[in-house]
């Protein structure tokens, strides 16, 4: 079995465990949380082993969170503002966002190589471009939601 399949299987098991623990409202919360922690630790270990054995390259995936957990801002995140929001998007929008991030990165590489911007201003350029890219993605999400909202709050046919 390839690393990718093992990862997919582990991810599937992890999702099932989340459903069975955290989302099972009948279970007492501390018990559910304790069990979830155990399951989650096992998942993280499994993925770490897979990555260490080099049979899993997560670079080419759709960017599902590898070991779960909250995204923490680091210096590299400072240079990648769109990375902050990817965890709040649906799987489908994440892929779009990742494509945008890749293209922006290539633009910046080009800009620096050609000396079109001073290094001092690079952070400003990154944030400005990222904000501009962010708007259409949000707008697409809103457009998808509009029919639902219209159905919910629109004038009733009675």
């Amino acid at each position, binding site marked *: 079995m390839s690393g990718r399949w093992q990862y997919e299987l582990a991810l599937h098991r992890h999702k099932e465990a989340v459903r069975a623990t955290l989302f099972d409202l009948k279970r007492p919360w501390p018990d559910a949380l304790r069990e979830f922690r155990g399951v989650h630790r096992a998942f993280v270990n499994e993925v770490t082993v897979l990555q260490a054995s080099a049979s899993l390259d997560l670079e080419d995936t759709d960017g599902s969170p590898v070991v779960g957990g909250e995204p923490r801002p680091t210096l590299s995140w400072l240079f990648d503002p769109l990375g902050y929001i990817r965890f709040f998007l649906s799987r489908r929008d994440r892929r*779009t966002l990742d*494509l*945008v991030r*890749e*293209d922006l990165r290539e633009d910046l590489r080009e800009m620096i190589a050609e000396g079109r911007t001073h290094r001092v201003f690079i952070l400003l350029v990154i944030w400005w471009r990222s904000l501009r890219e962010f708007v*259409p993605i949000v707008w697409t999400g809103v457009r998808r939601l509009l029919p639902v909202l219209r159905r919910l709050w629109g004038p009733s046919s009675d």
Partner: protein
Amino acid sequence: MNAKKTPSPRELQLLALIVTERNGREIAKLFQKETGQRLPYGTVYATLKLMEEAGWVSAKDELRDRDRRWVRLFRITGAGTKALNRGREFYRDLADFNPTEEEPANVVVEGGRA
């Protein structure tokens, strides 16, 4: 999105740019070169996604040899070509639209004013 609908001007422009297979960045660059306007990548990908759902565009991921980077390549489909032609016709008709040369002298509009 309805596959039978007439594409918007922006969709029409993008469809015309992907007659040859291109990735999002190339499309945005070409768009800027042709029109002089900058199109955010977010708009390009979001619009292409909607058109893909309508069946006008096909997309595939490919590992580029140059920098070992995954890129998504877009290409117009048969339905997309039909939509492109439909759109071109629609906007050509719209441009040719010319109201009758002889305008009625006194048209009384409801409400009293001519």
